[in-house]
Structure formats: C-alpha cells, structure tokens
C-alpha cells in the first residue's frame, strides 16, 4: 500500500505528454542506432543503458522540489566556475583542446555542467530580483553568463560555449531584456564580425569556409558535409529503408552514430521520416513553452523556458550542420545521437521542467 502510494507520488511529478514524446524519440533512436552501428547488438544495449540511466535521472530530478533547485543554483554555478578554472589550469588535452578535468576517480567535462548551471543560476537571480529590473541587473546577469562562456571558448570549445551562451541568453530574453538592447547587440555583433574572424582559430575559419563551399576541400574539411548531404539527398522522399542506407553502412558517412545520426535517419527514412522527427521535436518544444507559460513563478518560467529553447538550439544546430546550412560544430542531436553525457544533460533538463510544472502548488511567488 505504501509502495503503491509512493509510486503514485513519484509518477505524479511526471508530465505524460512530454514523456510520451520523449519515448517516441527514444524508440526512433533505437531503430536508427541499430542501423547506424551496422546492426550491432552490444552498441544497442549500451545505448539502451544510457537511455535508462538518463530516464532514471529524469524521474529523480522531476521529484526534486523547486525550492531545492533554487537553493543549489548558486553552489552549482560556483562549482562549475571553479572546475572550469581547474580545467584551464590542470585539464587534460584531448584533440588539441583542454576540456577534461581528471578528478582522480573520474574525468569530467565541466562545460557540460554549465549547460544546466548557467540557466539555473540566472533564473534564480532574476527570481530573487523580482519584478523591478534595472539595467544593472541585466548587466550583472550578462557578466555571470559571459564568464563561463569565455572560459569554455578558451578551451577551445566554441560549440559548447555558444550553447551555454544561448541557454543563458534565453533567461535574459524571457526576463524581459529590452528589444532595442537585443537588436543593438545583433547590430554590434554583425559589425564586429571581421574582428571575430580575426580572432578565430584556423580550424574554425576553415569550417565557416567549408560551409560556404564544401567542394573546396572534398577529402578534408568538406568531406563530412559532402557525405552527409549525399546521404540525406539520396534518401529522397521515402528513404532507402531501414538498414538500407549505403552511405552509413559502407562507412562513407563519418560519425554516423553520434553527430551525424540525422544523416542516417534522413537517408533511410527520407523526407517523410525527417518531417516526423522534426514534428516530434517541435511538439516537445511547444509543450515545454506551454509549461513555461503556465508556470507559477518567475524562476519556473525562466528556467523551463530557457531549457526548452536550449533543447531547440541543440536540435537546430545539429540538423542545420548535418544538412549543410550551419558550420560543423560538435553538437549531438538530442535523444538520437549515441553518447551518455549529452543525453543525461537533456533528460535532467526535462526532469527540471517536469518538476517545475508538477510542484506548482507547493511554491509561492
């Protein structure tokens, strides 16, 4: 009886429309991962394990009450900054960038923590500042946002830096950052593009150039984009069929279980499959925005709103990259790509959203 009540209590903190959409994504990802891994069962089991682990975390986080989330916002942020500084000083260099911190028992990538830490911190701040916002509040928030972004960008990991910047920016956006300030930044950003270009690393410049003309280096920088465009394009309207994708099965497509999983999907399931997938992502995002709009207080609104838009950003950046309209940035496709960390972060995010939705009666503005 007690167990039954306990289960009811736990499951009461889940949002079933969102969960159903996430399950659909997971189901699709099982199919496409099986195909992309050349029908490898061990790979599929690993992927399932990752999903199960992330799911458990989602359920746990969904049952954490918002005041607790508010309470940990500052410690998480500070810990994240400390770890990022630690990375900058003592981090392991992998593939030419310093991203990993060896803590003795495990290696962690502190930038991943900040994907959640930054929105958590900023949402809590704006919540505490209340409804009377002065320019200095935005300035402080902006400063707290730029600090981790700069640390991550220095690693260098421009992709993750931009994602962290985006998730923090969304908080400011929802908190009411004036339009003219935003437009001002957009104009200033465009104007300073040549300057940014000047400070970019060669490999980053190369990626931009490759986006504009993949044919300039077909076996080098352009190879990924050319092969994924071929994979998607050759899928046509109906796709080649499950397990029939030649680009992935014959290894022409690089990273086909991770960053380029969408190309496998597009090749095997065609335009119709891609529309279905994007529709599911859209439904998740709209459901998330709806939850945010109906949230009882500013913290819940800002946090859930920014997490949802961060999710959108992952999807957009990944599919945009794979289909050749955005530069190659190492961003996995949420829920579809193989890899435990990214999936766990995304699922914790949805856990937070569910918590914020289902604990509405317990907190007061």
């Amino acid at each position: 009886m007690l167990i039954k009540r306990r289960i009811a209590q736990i499951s009461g903190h889940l949002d079933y429309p969102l969960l159903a959409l996430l399950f659909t994504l997971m189901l699709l990802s099982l199919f496409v991962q099986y195909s992309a891994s050349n029908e490898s069962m061990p790979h599929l089991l690993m992927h399932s394990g990752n999903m199960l682990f992330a799911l458990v975390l989602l359920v746990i986080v969904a049952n954490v009450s918002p005041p607790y989330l508010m309470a940990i916002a500052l410690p998480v942020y500070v810990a994240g900054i400390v770890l990022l500084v630690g990375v900058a000083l003592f981090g392991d260099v992998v593939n030419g960038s310093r991203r990993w911190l060896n803590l003795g028992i495990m290696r962690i990538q502190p930038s991943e923590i900040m994907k959640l830490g930054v929105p958590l911190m900023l949402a809590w701040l704006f919540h505490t500042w209340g409804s009377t916002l002065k320019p200095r509040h935005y300035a402080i928030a902006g400063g707290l946002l730029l600090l981790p972004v700069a640390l991550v960008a220095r690693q260098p990991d421009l992709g993750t830096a931009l994602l962290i910047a985006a998730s923090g920016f969304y908080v400011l956006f929802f908190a009411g950052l004036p339009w003219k300030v935003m437009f001002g930044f957009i104009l200033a950003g465009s104007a300073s593009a040549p300057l940014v270009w000047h400070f970019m690393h060669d490999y980053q410049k190369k990626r931009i150039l490759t986006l504009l003309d993949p044919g300039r280096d077909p076996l080098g920088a352009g190879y990924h984009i050319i092969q994924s465009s071929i994979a998607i394009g050759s899928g046509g309207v109906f796709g080649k069929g499950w397990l029939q994708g030649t680009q992935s099965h014959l290894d022409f497509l690089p990273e086909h279980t991770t960053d380029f999983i969408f190309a496998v999907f597009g090749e095997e399931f065609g335009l119709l499959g891609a529309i279905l997938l994007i529709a599911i992502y859209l439904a998740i995002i709209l459901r998330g925005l709806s939850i945010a709009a109906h949230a009882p207080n500013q913290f819940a609104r800002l946090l859930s709103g920014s997490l949802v838009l961060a999710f959108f950003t992952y999807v957009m950046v990944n599919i945009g990259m794979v289909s050749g309209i955005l530069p190659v940035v190492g961003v996995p496709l949420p829920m579809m790509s193989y890899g435990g960390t990214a999936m766990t972060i995304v699922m914790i995010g949805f856990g937070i959203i569910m918590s914020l939705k289902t604990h509405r009666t317990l907190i007061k503005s």
Partner: protein
Amino acid sequence: MKSRISIRTYHEELSGFTQRAWVAAILVGLAFTILLARLVYLQIWRYDYFHTLAENNRITVVPVAPNRGIILDSHGDVLAHNYAAYTLELTPGKIHDLNTTIDQLATLVEISPANRRNFFKLLQQSHNFETLPLRNRLTDAEVARVAANRYRLPGVEVKARLFRQYPHQTEAAHLLGYIGRMSDADIRQLESEGRYDNYRGTDHIGKTGIEQSFENQLRGTPGSDLVETDAQGHAVRTLAHRDPVSGDDLVLWLDARMQAIAEQAFGDHKGALVALDPRTGGILALVSMPEFDPNLFVDGIDTSDWDSLNNSPDHPLINRALRAAYPEGSTIKPFMALAGLHDGVRTPTDTIADPGYFRFPGSSHRYRDWAPNGHGMVDMHRSIVVSCDTYYYHLANDLGIDRMHDYLSQFGFGHKTGIDLSGEVAGVLPSRAWKARFSKQPWFPGETVICGIGQGYNLTTPLQLAMATAALANGGKLLRPELVKTVIDSATGKRTSIAPDVIRTIDLPPEQRQVIVDAMIDVTRPGGTAVSAFAGAPYTVAAKTGTAQVVGLRQNEKYNASHMEADHRDHAVFIAFAPADNPKIAVAVLVENGGHGGTAAGPIARAVMDYYLLGKLPKPATTPAATTGNTANAD
C-alpha cells in the same frame, strides 16, 4: 518598454513572458521551416544528383582483363600464351613508408634487389593511384604467408594475374615481339585514338613484333564487375558481372621447327634468314641473329639485362631481316639478267669474252671480275652459273641506271614490303633521280657498272630479297609477306584465313624466266658456285650466291679474309627456291661477315629446305653448318 523596467505586477510579468514565449514559438517555427526547406531542397529538388553521387560512392566498376589471344605456329605449336600467377602488389598511396613495408615483406617472401629497383622505377613512371607489382610468381607458400600477415600490411595485396609467356624463348623473338607495361606515351596514344577504355584492367600492351602489329586482334575486350565497396575501397559484394571477351588467336605461317633449324644453322653468326611460301607469301621462317629472350620484357626488363642487350655491339634487338639493309652482291644478277631480256638489251645467247675485268673505252680503270683471269666466253646462262662479274658490268652499262631501277623496282627492291611488322626499312634502289635528291654531283657511269653486281649504292633487306626471290619462283606475282595465316575468333571459334595479297604482277614471260631458272639450277650443280651446299639434294634447287663487300678494295688489292678484321669480312648472301619446277619455298639468307654466299649462307638454306621438303631434321651431333668464308674463291 520602459514600463517593464519600472514597477510591474505579477500579471504584467506574466503577460510579458507569454508574449516572449509566443515570439520564441514563432522563431522556432521559422527555424524549423528553414530546416524543412533545406531538406526539401536536398531530398526532392536535388534528389537525382545526390542519388547518383551515393551510387558512385557505393559502386565501383572493376574491369576484368580479357585473355590475350594466343599465338600458334602453322602446326599448332604454341609460341605465345598466358598463365595465371600470383603477384605481390603495393598501392603506394596507402603506404606511409614504402621501404619499411618492403623490408617487412622481405621477411615473408623473397624480394631481390632487382625487384626493389624495378618497383621504384615503376613508381616513378606511374601516373595515378594504381597498384604496382613488387614481385611476380609467388609460390603457394608465399601467398599463404602474405595472406596471414595482411592485417599488418595495409596497401599490400596479392593478386592473381595473367602473364604472357613465350615458351620458345629466344626462338622467333624478333617476329613475335613482346608485350610490356604501358608507358605514358602509350596511354596518351590510346586516349587520343579513343581506345583507352579497352585497356582498363590491364597495364600491358604489345610493344614490338606481332604482339604490337596485331594488338587489336590479340587484345580482346575487357569485362567488368560491378562491385559495392565501402569507404576504404574494400569490396563488399559483387552486384553484376560482365564477362570479358578473349582476344583472337593467331595461327602463323611460321613453322617453329624450321625456325629452330635455321637459327641453329646460324651457329654464332650474325645475320638473317627469311623463308617464304612463294604461292602465298606466307613467312615460314624469319630469323635475325643474334636473338634475345622476349620473356625478359614482359614485366619490365631489369636494368642490367636491358643494358647488356641495348649496348651489345651485335645489336640483338634489331630485327635484321627487315631493319638492316645490305648490298645484294651477286644475288642481284638473276634480276639484272631478266632486266636485260625484258628491255631487249640481251638475248640468252649473247656472249662476251671475259678478260677478267671491264674497262670504259679510253679509261685505264679496271672493274675487276672475282676471277682474276676471267671466265672466257660467257653467255647469260654461264654468267649466272659462274657468277661472272664482267658480264654484268657490260649489261649494266648497256642498260643504264634508270632502266635498271625501273625494272628492279618491279620486284620490290627499294620499297618497303608492307609486312605487318614495324620498323621496316625500304633499302636503296639507286637511280639518277635518287642521287639528285642528296647530291649535287651527277650520276657517274662507273656507279652504274658496280650496281650491276649489287655493290654500289644498292641496299636491300633480307626480307626484300626473299620477296623478290619468291616472285621469281612463282612466275611473277609479287606477294606481300604475310605473318598470319588464320585468325581464330575466340568467342565463336570461327577461323578466318588471310588471303594472299598480290602487290603486282610482274611482266615476266615464261621463256625469259626459264632461262634464268635453268641457270640458277645449274648454280647448285657441278661447276656452279653453290655446288657444295646442295650436293646430293634429292630435289632441284634454283639458287644464286652472293658476297656483299663491307669494305672497298684498292685497285690492285686482293681480298683475303684471313688478313681482315672479322667485322670487315664480306657478308655472305644466298637466295634459293625449290623444287625448281614447282616452288614451295623461297629463301634468302644473309650471314654477316660470313664470306662467300655458297659456303657460309648456302648450307643454312639447305638445312631449311631439307626440313621443309623432306621432313628431315638436322643431325643433332653435327656442328652448325655455317663456317667462316675464309676462301672467297668462287663468286
């Protein structure tokens, strides 16, 4: 806007958020619309393009080389064929350090320094990311060892390939020629002719001889395998297969046994022999001595082998039968006599008194006969039998060089025969017009006189001489020398015989011809210059001996072979056909520095004819028949 920064209520805050959430939703919708537009562009608008690219990625057409046609002699003896063997091949583009890889391989299979040298030579010449052979003819054990270690040798492959082989080795090498690796020049040539597609899957092409001139028949058409490959280029499965069409087989007129007998008969001598069937123009034997082994060239000749062949003073690579021209010497005399009859300058019975020399009126210069005291009274018959020089000095003087030229060119002198072998030279049949082309000096009568005994400007290849002899034998049909008797279509087995090619019919009245043939028969009989060579032959032979001077002698100098450098000795020349009344074979023989035609070149012709007409094989114990002509006592 400003109001938002000032005091706001919960509801204001909420409505502000809702407004921004709507903006976010619209932006998300827009962004996804852009994604969809991109996907529609890729998957509908440019579907055909990307579909083709994906198929090109996936499918590789692997050419399958055809079997090259085999070459047989007239009895079906194989002269050139193919055998399958394993080769060790490297793809330089996939190997970081070639020397290390080769060192590793050397622990598994035997790799000689020559193998390495050849490999790096090929590497310099190679034009794309092709595989290059390191070693041929791996044994089964070697194949197994390489296969077992393949995982640690990327870019190393064992391939089964067809190899060309010439089982008779040096025999008829000049006639067969050889195949070799295609050079960049070959490829450019094929591309310009639009035939390069036909060479996919192989890298060999006929370089010389029949292998070169019958390349198109021998080559065949490549087939193809449609193979699905992965990104590393490994074949995953075969999707479709088209069989190659083997090249046509060639049956030659050549008789390999006769060829062997003739070559053996030359012994250590340099020279050439051509034996024709006067009825068809078929080449029964074509010898050029010394020879070389065409097998050396098939997989790229080793530098040291090449140097020894190419730098040899004996020039073994030159096909003397058609690329070297010599003075005919006295073998021109039967044709000169015919010219005299034809132009009405001589009758068979016209007789001269031979004092042993010819002299222009009012000149003291003597054109000497080989017999210092002369031959006495000489008519046309006797002039051939004893090879009287004085008779032909007179005849040449009476005919004049231009009439000689016009008549002799009927027999093909001075013109290429048109044989299907490259590099043939035309030789020289002099005339006033010919001399005017390179000299300001007029034609001198003395030049005509020595041309009359085949010692002037005249130069003739052994092949031309054989062709002219065959025309005399068959009654006046000048036939183009033919190499190939029958072409066998490998697909249908259909045999196509090649018809004789009559270049022209010479105006040769039978009674005039008979005078000459009778005289040539007596050349091989007692009193003739070739009596020793054909003593006891059970068939009648019409022949003429000749000696081609290599160096001129001063006025009163006597030729004495034993006092001369070996390579200044006269060339021995010999022409013959038999049986005289129904000729089946016509032969021209030239032995360089052999001395007298009857003794040095005649026995070679005898060996060939004995075999051809009697089926007689030479006695294995006897030494080769040719001996140095150290006695130039009869010409």
